[in-house]
């Protein structure tokens, strides 16, 4: 980790306001894969659907666990790719 920076003040996920300290603590508690970290911390579950945080957390996790980046980056993208208003699914008759 970067020396001299307080991990409580580093934001990893802007949508859900998750800090680096949150990520490190969760990994420390034994939650050592991205699927589980996602659900514990809500990374990847906000408005941007993980466009920033998932890669960052995958990197942190790879460094902490000694696994390769490919091994840790697994969460599945759910549709829609970007958020869509409910009304656009209603179809023709309304």
């Amino acid at each position: 980790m970067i020396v001299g920076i307080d991990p409580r003040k580093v934001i990893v996920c802007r949508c859900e306001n998750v800090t680096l300290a949150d990520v490190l603590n969760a990994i420390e508690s034994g939650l050592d894969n991205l699927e589980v970290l996602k659900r514990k911390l809500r990374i990847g579950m906000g408005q941007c659907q993980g466009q920033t945080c998932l890669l960052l957390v995958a990197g942190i996790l790879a460094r902490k666990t000694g696994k390769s980046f490919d091994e840790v980056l697994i969460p599945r993208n759910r549709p829609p790719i970007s958020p869509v208003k409910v009304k656009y699914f209603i179809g023709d008759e309304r």
Partner: protein
Amino acid sequence: MKTDVLIIGGGVTGLFTAVSLLEQGCRNIVIIEKSYIGSGGTFRCATGIRASFTSREHVNVMKRAIDLWPEYARKLGFLYRRDGYLWVLTRERDVEFFKQVVEFHHSLGVPSRMISPEEVREIVPSINTNGILAAVYDPLAGKAQVFNAVLNAVIHLKRNNINVYEGMRALKISGEGSRIVVETNKGRVEADKVIVAAGKDSANLLKGLGVELPIHNLAKHVLITEAFKPVIKPLIIDWSSSSYILQVFHGNIYIGSDIPEKYDEPAVNKYMFLEKAAKVWTRYFPWLGEVYVLRYWTGYYDMTPDHHPIIGPLEENENILVAAGFSGHGFMMAPAVAEALTQYILGGKPTIPEFENLKPDRFKKGKLIKEIAVFG
């Protein structure tokens, strides 16, 4: 690897059972999960919890679960709240049917009641009640935080030196003398007792022992929106369209809606679901049209012929216990199931006698349980 109790399946049932066993002093437990914790039905579920069912078995098991949920919430540190369930009824025949259901609930001490559209608006101020003839309200029902419930259970278990292995898949179960041997993709595990809590995979695993569990996967579809401050308190079911909506603790609005599906067909995303979910719920909540959908996912109900779970020791080998086939209600009953399995493991009988009616041999013996309504 050797252990006293091996639990196959890292969903809410398996993990809560481990928590319950630990509480009773059983410390030598191993949990194996083929994918990641909660990856089956658990993390996909709506998190609703109710005792308002239409069989004595479901009602009494769920009532016990509702007694236990606050204890689990305190111990593990997650939110559980009795925000109620609301069935909105739009057809005369449904109102007549639910009058009988409410009477049945009262006979077993479940405090549901028939309410008017005006009362519906008092409970959910932003709902459009046009078309609603009446509703059934169950104030004892509620919801819990699934991620924290399950992941805090994992953290609690790990702190107590109980190993939870992810990516470890059970391949074959066999009984050798008084011990049970489970072959996995990562070696062999020997245990005195094995709990199979692996959804439909439970049936595949036990087939090798000559045990037939009639479990079929039924695809289900749900979506979740962006998060808001609390706006919908109870879980609401639109009975005529088999659809439901709830606002989870984090604030997102979660919608499920049935579309035609066949047993054991793969769950794939279908536009038809999004269209139906949007149509049904924008009618009740016109403001919902402006809300963004964040995610759409599918999952399975592991269905049994009588829509009730299979719980208890095998007749063929009492050291192998099953907890599967929850038919859409596994999360809500987990604390009660964990207690019952613990009681079986420790050589006793479940406190709630109805568990005995849910044993695996009931299908062979033709002692199926009848329920009028499966939902949520």
